């Protein structure tokens, strides 16, 4: 078998050294009833690389890929162009097959990347510090809520209606077991988010206010006003950024007063990948440093006085604090953080700004084209690269009908909020720098046909 280097001669020689007659003898501690005597029945045997590739290619062909049709899906995962360099670099064996940098002397590559990544995220978010990544945006959002509870010693989190339904459901699941109370509402199809209503829900028991920016309908909340209101009541503002490219043209949440900023880094370097692996981003104020979940990389010097990097503040983490850790997290999203960092390095501030402007321009053209389709109303006053539209009928069926016409037109709100009848005719449409005029024309034409 091509991945197993031992020969029968090797095995015999090794068994002699061990003093055992067979490999089976080494499993003597397994109770006889539990020991399988042969390969598990009913499962196929080993296969050549060619056969496996053929099988997987057949499965791959049985999907409509985003690049092969006009594509307008967003809702927490976005299709941006990733330069070829990124995928080449992350496949270097010294990055791909390296481990967590617990032995820093021979892991300065990984560690310096993490330090650069942390700095990039902190600058992008406008926070003092950032960690070395978490699993994804939804779990990062929950970790922030838990952290706010620890800091404020209060148990009620207020989530804005604009928070992604999957993020809300994730937090709801976790809160059931920690006893935190979550105050949640469904989004409403209004042209701007109702920041005043959100502010009215904050009181002296609130640990944090969670606001997505831009929100699930693509609208842009007034974070500064919400931050002031939260802080007046002793609560923390947690901003959630599911599309970090937006920060190429929008002010950073940190600069607007957010205490903790979390997000999904998938847009930059990582790719759609049918939902994972993705990249949790986490930044916050310096004073909350010792409450941060996940890994942290810090600068130091070595015995010769040379600058180097190490994982630090490990005493927060589960392998030391065990039951008293800030979180049970062990893994970060290392390779995805590397991809994000390389893409961000290729972009620079000017490239990110350009990419964001082009995405916004494509969304503007799309909104204009759809506004011209009879029966379609564009909801948003403001948006970055994603906006909501209302249709004269249930959007779920419209999305399927568009797909039948080889157009992936957006995400129906019914898919995300199956219990909210008021949202059933709504959908969110996203565009990026990848979206062409032909794509937009195709979407408008197909939608017109479906609604006729």
């Amino acid at each position, binding site marked *: 078998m091509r991945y197993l280097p031992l020969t029968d001669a090797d095995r015999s020689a090794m068994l002699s050294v061990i003093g055992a007659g067979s490999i089976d003898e080494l499993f003597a501690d397994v109770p006889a009833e539990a020991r399988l005597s042969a390969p598990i029945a009913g499962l196929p045997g080993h296969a050549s690389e060619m056969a496996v590739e053929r099988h997987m290619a057949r499965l791959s062909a049985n999907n409509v890929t985003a690049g092969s049709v006009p594509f307008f899906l967003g809702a927490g995962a976005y299709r941006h162009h990733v330069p070829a360099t990124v995928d080449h670099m992350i496949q270097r064996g010294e990055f791909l097959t390296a481990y967590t940098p617990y032995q820093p002397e021979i892991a300065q590559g990984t560690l310096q990347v993490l330090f650069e990544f942390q700095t990039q995220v902190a600058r992008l978010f406008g926070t003092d510090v950032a960690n070395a990544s978490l699993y994804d945006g939804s779990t990062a959002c929950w970790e922030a809520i838990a952290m706010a509870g620890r800091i404020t010693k209060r148990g009620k989190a207020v989530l804005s209606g604009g928070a992604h339904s999957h993020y809300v459901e*994730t937090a709801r699941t976790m809160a059931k077991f920690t006893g935190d109370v979550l105050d949640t509402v469904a989004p409403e199809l209004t042209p701007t988010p109702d920041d005043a209503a959100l502010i009215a829900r904050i009181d002296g028991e609130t640990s944090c206010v969670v606001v997505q920016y831009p929100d699930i309908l693509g609208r842009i909340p007034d974070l500064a006003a919400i931050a002031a209101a939260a802080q007046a009541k002793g609560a923390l503002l947690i901003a959630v950024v599911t599309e970090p490219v937006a920060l190429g043209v929008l002010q950073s949440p940190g600069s607007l007063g957010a205490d903790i900023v979390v997000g999904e880094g998938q847009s930059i370097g990582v790719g759609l990948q049918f939902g994972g692996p993705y990249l949790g981003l986490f930044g916050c104020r310096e004073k909350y440093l010792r409450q941060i979940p996940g890994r942290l990389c810090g600068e130091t010097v070595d015995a010769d006085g040379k600058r180097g990097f190490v994982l630090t503040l490990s005493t927060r983490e589960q392998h030391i604090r065990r039951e008293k850790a800030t979180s049970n997290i062990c893994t970060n999203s290392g390779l995805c953080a590397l991809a994000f960092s390389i893409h961000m390095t290729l972009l620079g501030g000017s490239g990110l700004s350009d990419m964001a402007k082009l995405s916004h321009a494509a969304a503007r053209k799309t909104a204009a084209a759809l506004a011209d389709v009879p029966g379609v109303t564009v909801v948003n006053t403001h948006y970055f690269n994603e906006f909501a539209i209302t249709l004269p009928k249930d959007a779920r069926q419209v999305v399927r009908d568009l797909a039948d016409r080889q157009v992936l037109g957006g995400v129906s709100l019914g898919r995300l909020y199956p219990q909210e009848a008021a949202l059933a005719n709504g959908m969110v449409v996203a565009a990026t720098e990848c979206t062409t005029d032909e794509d937009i024309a195709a979407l408008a034409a197909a939608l017109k046909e479906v609604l006729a």
Partner: protein
Amino acid sequence: MNAINPTGWRPSMGENVPGAPIQTFTGNRGLQLEEALLFELGLPDRSGVDFPETDSIDLSALGPMARTERPNLPGLSEPETVRHYTRLSRQNYAIDLGLFPLGSCTMKHNPRLDEKVARMPGFADVHPLQPVHTVQGALSVINELAFWLIELTGMHGVAMTPKAGAHGELCGLLCIRAALEAKGDPRDVILVPESAHGTNPATAAFAGFKVENIPATPEGRVDSAALIARLGPDVAGVMITNPNTCGLFERDLKIIADAVHAAGGYVYCDGANFNAIVGRVRPGDLGVDAMHINLHKTFSTPHGGGGPGSGPVVLSEALSPFGPLPFTARQADGSVTLIEEEQAHEEHPQTFGRMCAFHGQMGMYTRALAYILSHGADGLRQVSGDAVLNANYILRSLDDVLDAPFGASGPCMHEALFSDDGFAEGFSTNDLAKGLIDEGYHPMTVYFPLVVHGAMLVEPTETESKAGIDQFVGAMRSLAERARAGDEMLKSAPHLAPRRRLDETLAARKPKLVWKED
């Protein structure tokens, strides 16, 4: 104070070594190249990406939150970017370079076919919220992998979505908690062996359980008598690792599981060490109710410098109804559907909910499935056989020069455990580990499990050749002799790595987590 410094590890920078190395103008040493920080190299108006002109784009629809300046992030041209990351990559040890003996991490070869498959457009370029009839191939991959995991473990169902092992542990414990709540049973104690990985008690505490430790026997296994004696109407279950963190098979697991079930509790198994038994033993046959599988360990998805992982959880019939959303289900007509919140009311009403956005680590599923299909049932059986053979070979090749605390009680599983007993006064496991770096290897897992003093846990995996293992054994013998003799040079090792020992005390006392202009 409670147990002071359980690992016994203290930082030590070592003395300065006499005989300075050759100085160069650049600070580079031949092919060993220094690399500055991105923030010292790049500028915000430099970029390695060409875009069409954007100055004339109308930004009025952004509203009042629009930026006035572009973000302060440095950029580099493409050639500079390639240099920067290539040079950084060369400062890392990796599986591709050599044996990576980290116990409990299963650092096996990462097949490149898996990388090719993961990048097939039907898997890489599809959005999780596309209508399910447009992603049947992708959903089939998840469903097929789920089938394999269930068959390999002899369990009833599987929760695919947890994003890492620790996330999987949480999933398993939340299933247990949901099952108890469904019965109105308030029991809330989880028993955890003291040799367990730190994620176990951390996860149990997070899930709202009280954690109680069960000691180990002198033979390195959990004290099953003590465990069984502790069972009662307040014990929700036990978290057990099998093979355990000492590299030994928990012979009494079925007996323990039967007792736990009889007392009304559940058995969670930490599957980090599944590589030792894959294809030979099924945890379902041992009475396990839930077990997470680390796809990045047993099924070779790449470690990537620390992640991403993937931790699907196989579940018994008792726990399957409580598993999280979403999951795939094959229909009678052969198509695959996705059970999300909307379908949950009818199809899966007792679910404890959703653990994360979307449907899991697809990029890891494709890699793991390609790996599993390549090996097949016979190949996977050979994996565990060779893994255990390699570890025992290392154990018996070293147990005359290194103390193996459980070496006398029989064979080990896929990893061999040594202690620092016999080292010269003042010499520690850390010194040997740092010496191993100079020999061209990443150190083994050190100071874990805590139940052995100065623990060294060596897991070669099955993808090592005999010649490669012999070379590693030779290096270890040399280091063991030096540690026993008290070779002072070990105390300041490594001498030859890109960096000498790093000041972790300074990093913790004065944390510098981001670059700042001076």
